[in-house]
């Protein structure tokens, strides 16, 4: 099936056309799945991931009227719905993950996505700034990258993050600080290179 553009899918959703939901599944299912995997960070199992993905796509169907194309792409809007659905599931799973003493088991950092296939020059130019940030993010060591993703994209509270990783709050602060410095350094180098090239 040929991919539909976002406007068409949105119209289908607004018209309560089941084809719109199918298009979301076919075109965004894999991205939503990946995001949910990242948010759950090793908690739960595949069934949990699939359920959250279904929840998020059904929420997009139910709430299509709330989507504002002027503020976001449809893909990003659906991903935001998925993010919060996954955070909700993670909370429930984390509770299950408490050990007999009521302490959370250490949940290791999950893998972050690898660099995507090279984007076209047009796309790079259009989204240069965010692309550069994400390129720098992907260049970080996996553990630092994951720490930044969990803290800033998934907005995990510091106390929760420290508990999951088996770190003291001070140790977590230090690791976060290092990761931020590292990213800033990479960005600074990247921006320096771009400025030199102009």
């Amino acid at each position: 099936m040929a991919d539909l553009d976002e406007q068409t899918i949105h119209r289908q959703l607004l018209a309560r056309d089941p084809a719109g939901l199918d298009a979301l599944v076919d075109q965004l299912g894999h991205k939503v799945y990946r995001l949910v995997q990242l948010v759950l960070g090793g908690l739960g199992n595949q069934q949990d991931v699939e359920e959250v993905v279904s929840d998020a796509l059904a929420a997009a169907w139910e709430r299509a009227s709330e989507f504002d194309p002027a503020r976001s792409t449809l893909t990003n809007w659906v991903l935001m719905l998925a993010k919060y659905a996954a955070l909700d599931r993670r909370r429930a799973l984390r509770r299950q993950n408490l050990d007999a003493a009521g302490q959370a088991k250490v949940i290791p950092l999950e893998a972050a996505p690898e660099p995507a296939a090279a984007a076209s020059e047009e796309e790079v130019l259009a989204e240069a700034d965010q692309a550069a940030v994400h390129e720098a993010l992907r260049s970080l060591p996996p553990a630092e990258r994951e720490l930044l993703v969990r803290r800033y994209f998934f907005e995990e509270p510091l106390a929760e993050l420290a508990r999951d990783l088996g770190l003291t709050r001070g140790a977590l602060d230090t690791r976060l600080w290092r990761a931020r410095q590292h990213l800033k350094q990479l960005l600074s180098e990247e921006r320096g290179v771009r400025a030199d090239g102009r």
Partner: protein
Amino acid sequence: MAGRDFTAEEREFLKSAGLDINQLEPLVADAPALPQDVLERIRTGARERAGMALEAEPAALPAARRRFRPWVAAAALLVIAGAVALSQSDGAMAAIQRLVRLVPGIGLTEADVGTLVMPSPVTVEQGGQRLTITGLISGSDGTELRYEIEGLPLEKQVSDVPGFPFRAALRLADGTELKELNAATGAGEGTISGIIWFAAPPHVTEAFTLSITPVDSSVAPFEVTIPVVDAAVAGLPEAVEGGWSAERLGIRIGVPYWTVQDDRIVLNLTVNAPQGIRFQEVGERIGENRLLPVLTDNLGRTYPLIEESSQLFKNSFEPVSLVFQGPIAPDADALRLQVPAVRVADTSAKAVRLSIPLNQLPLGEPLQLQKEIELGPYRFTVKEVTRLEDLAFRFDVDLGPEQDGTLLQEIKVSPSRPGSWGSTWIVDRQTLQTTSIEYYPDVLRRGRLDVQLSEPVLRLQGDWEVTIPLTSGSEDE
């Protein structure tokens, strides 16, 4: 927009780095395509949630999952049978029982003639790492392999590796490779364990060979031969019917199958609950007052629960199972399983809305509410609400005492109109009741904090009791 509880330093970092935390697309730009069966399950789930009638037959479960379908059927049969005569097996039930055996590393599952099983775990070592095949079962509905790899480099855990750290290929003795269908993985400190589902073998084999090809240096290459035998001649313990408890608090607990192996007693457990009640967990294993299942015999002897071998949570891949330390005393006539508590979510309770003008919520100043809420049949109090930040609120709640065996432990706070939000919970260690909920809406409308309270989670203390008669043969298998 910066996050809700970011520090000033973090906000400055996000601003200076130009990191837009609401742009999630780049994070998943490389998401691989999903297998068709996974996509179809997601489609079916989304359609069901969207209230659409299925246009066609639901997509078939992946072959390996079908192994568990007889469980569903068996549990349903037992519910019906249990209402009539719990301890009397009929022919149909006996036929089902004959299919269920305790398969090493897999648990109590269907394993009839023609099903190949691994009689005992197989371990190989390579490069300081140890691969153990903990379980394998293969039949006409698929092949399930469970494994564990230990000794992974701690400084570079598997979970740090982009993508899956290895490719697995499973071959029959004649070299035929089985198609991989699905996988589930868990990782810990220096270990990775998981399940891989492969297609059904086209013909009988005496052994499988698993090859692990690393895609990252964190995992060593492995090749291991896994001898298998027909389940019917493997000498596996056969499961027999257990029984059902009386109904308490609307819940009945059943032991559809149980068996013994060496000095261990293995029970599978199922819960029959009213519509809208979703079973989550058997017992209460955390907190100060643990409420775990107890197994005794008719002469009063207790068989301790082996928690690390039991599955107390509802799990998508396998039934709830309890493993107790035996052996059963030879003069015992019956076992008695006592289940003091279960945790359930009541999805039938209608959500309650709460609306507070923001001008009553100055930053950092608690608004005393002491508002009693009725959420379905459950009552609790919202004591106070505090605006912590522009888009961060804390609800201090008193979920009330236990009443008639029912303790309200959690409630969900979410926007009363559709919208994105986040939340975290603070829980009392003794009762495991939520005491505070921090709630982070993405937006506020019309100058009000509008939320709904829903999805109560309850601990039910019903002291259910299942009597399991020890018929000849069942106690000395």
